[in-house]
């Protein structure tokens, strides 16, 4: 088998140490090349998108969009989503308006969701992918192209996300929400606030919060903060040295504060289980609704780098290829892109801000949606100019990160 070009960077010892990672990556590359040669009709080549390398996703003859002018199907619209990420009223209203049932199924990690969607063993009508995985889902034909005739509301969102770097022209996806990854904390519990530190990421190591420090249970988000702490701004690095560094930083948190892992940031912080929690901005805004009776939102704090050079992202909505109700699903996507529905979903339930042009970020505090102490959790279109999204990694890169993550999670 030929060597992967990047393999030559590894020293012999390192190569041995990571052999399986490398070889799994290599073997997949081999099959990928075979696939490009036309041997495997199932999959196409994958181009890794990033803001500096925007990608127009390919269309396939055997995976056409639904035709225009069809009536939405009846039956049950099946949604596959994170929990707490869609206001139940929206589902109820949509169901009533279209005379259908809406059923929502939750996943807890992207890994799990992508594994199930791509296995083809489940059939959902609506799915919420993330930027670091969507390219693979498209190349593997797990998603179907969208018919924009059904999506007039797409023009309601920021122009930049109508034509995003991961899917130029929104061929397969429409944007759903935007968020940043920062540090949530309990103002009333921590001795030191992150913003008072010269390197705010050091807050994770503050032993005063031992047992109350959480990172997001996500193999990309958690290491990203370790990289940023060390001034490595490329959060999508595949350099083994960077990965090693991030891994060691993560491991040092075990001894320092017995760090815990969870994606339930929106309840852990208000419930007081966590005093310091790596947190998505939307969870910070949503956390105010999970505070116990008698506790006000002023106990919540959210830090995001002042210069804006932190992790940012937007989530999206797509329609799996084997959806049983594709037209109805298009209508649902359009329903969510509606200005009123998007806003209601945000301020009543999720706390995750939709990229609606009509939504004025400057008014969120005065409108009472976001408490003044959480205004750092508000996302602006211009934030995307400086902040870094998590992009898709190569197979090798993913394997390297996953193994580093597994090693950290082993508590070595």
């Amino acid at each position, binding site marked *: 088998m030929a060597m992967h070009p990047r393999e030559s960077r590894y020293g012999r010892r390192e190569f041995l140490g990571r052999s399986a990672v490398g070889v799994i990556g290599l073997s997949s590359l081999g099959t990928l090349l075979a696939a490009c040669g036309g041997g495997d009709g199932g*999959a196409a080549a994958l181009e890794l998108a990033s803001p500096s390398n925007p990608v127009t996703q390919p269309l396939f003859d055997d995976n056409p969009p639904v035709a225009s002018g069809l009536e939405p199907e009846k039956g049950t619209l099946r949604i596959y989503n994170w929990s707490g990420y869609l206001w139940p009223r929206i589902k109820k209203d949509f169901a009533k308006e279209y005379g259908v049932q809406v059923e929502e199924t939750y996943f807890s990690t992207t890994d799990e969701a992508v594994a199930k969607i791509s296995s083809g063993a489940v059939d959902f009508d609506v799915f919420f992918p993330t930027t670091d995985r969507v390219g693979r889902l498209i190349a593997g034909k797990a998603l179907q192209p969208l018919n924009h005739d059904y999506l007039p509301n797409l023009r309601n969102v920021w122009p930049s996300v109508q034509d995003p770097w991961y899917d130029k022209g929104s061929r397969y996806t429409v944007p759903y929400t935007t968020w940043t990854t920062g540090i949530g904390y309990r103002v009333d519990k921590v001795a030191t606030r992150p913003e008072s530190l010269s390197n705010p990421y050091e807050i994770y190591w503050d032993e005063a919060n031992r047992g109350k420090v959480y990172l997001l249970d996500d193999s990309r988000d958690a290491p990203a903060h370790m990289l940023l702490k060390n001034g490595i701004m490329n959060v999508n690095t595949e350099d083994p040295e960077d990965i090693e560094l991030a891994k060691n930083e993560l491991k040092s948190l075990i001894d320092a504060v017995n*760090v815990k892992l969870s994606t339930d940031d929106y309840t852990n912080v208000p419930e007081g289980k966590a005093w310091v929690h790596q947190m998505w901005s939307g969870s910070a805004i949503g956390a105010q609704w999970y505070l116990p009776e008698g506790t006000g939102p002023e106990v919540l704090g959210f830090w995001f780098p002042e210069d804006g050079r932190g992790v940012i992202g937007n989530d999206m909505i797509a329609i799996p290829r084997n959806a049983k109700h594709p037209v109805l699903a298009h209508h649902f996507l359009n329903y969510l892109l509606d200005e009123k529905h998007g806003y209601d979903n945000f301020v009543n339930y999720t706390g995750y801000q939709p990229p609606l042009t009509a939504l004025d970020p400057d008014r969120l505090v005065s409108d009472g949606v976001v408490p003044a102490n959480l205004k750092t959790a508000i996302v602006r279109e211009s934030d995307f100019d400086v902040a870094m999204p998590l992009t898709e990694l190569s197979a090798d890169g993913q394997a390297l990160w996953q193994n580093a993550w597994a090693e950290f999670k082993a*508590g070595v």
Partner: protein
Amino acid sequence: MSEDAGAAAERPVVDRRGNAFWASLALPGVAWLCLFFLLPFYVILCVAFGSVHPVFLTPQPAWNPLSWDTRAFEFVLEGLFTPGAAFQVVFLRTLAYVAIATSLSLLIAYPVAYYVARHGGRYKGLLLAGLVAPFFISYLMRMLAWINLLQDDGWVNDVLVWAGVLDGPRNWLDGRASSVILGMVYGYVPFMILPLYAFLDRIDGRLLEAARDLGASRFQTFRLVTLPLSGPAILAAVAIIALPMFGDYYTPDLLSQSPNTSLIGNQISLYIRGGQQVPVGAALVVCLMAFLAVLMAYYLVVTVRAQRRLGG
């Protein structure tokens, strides 16, 4: 399953036919186990020795053993046999947790089973109901009950603070090994008590009377007769809870959430459910199975030997 009515004449023929009849009665169950128990093990092997889909990174099993790719396996073995490597640390931790939890369980289970079986008296039925009750309460619900009690403002802290054992509430769920191990003991101990009880209840009373008649004290009777007799039952009870414990991942997930207490089951769960390197997860499963098979083989050898000794 057509049954020949006039087959009574020749005994041997009948037997052979009878045998076929019994075999056919067992067939659906055997087929079920082949299809949904044995075959899946082959699939695990094919995945562990297979590759991943170039785009999705989902597993692509190699069905033909001749084309098996050993690299995921090598990765796992290297991790298991390199001192200080993640897989080894987690495996040793799992081993330690299982050993401690099993020993503690035995320390609780044996006296309880012994008492109910030998001295239950007229409360035996009631006590037995108490022993069987946890079977009807789901493991997760029992863990939930403990999470309730162990919270910062839960009753465990209330009681300990009230009794003066603690100065202030302690965060029992902050990722300490003791919480996880005690959770495991709590969860698994009922499964150990019942087989022990079943055995101790069956010991022939006349045997013990004979020992007493020969002048042995109660303790000597226990030490010289009951305990040696219970050897195989203890071993069986240990096997019944220890082997499944090796696959536990939910107890640490629920009671700790800290990397410090993660077990081999957590690593398997991460790789299998994580989706990008399923072959690594499958290889871990194969290694775990191989290890457990060794334990099982040891158990069988010991049991067979003990039986032979008793027989001889």
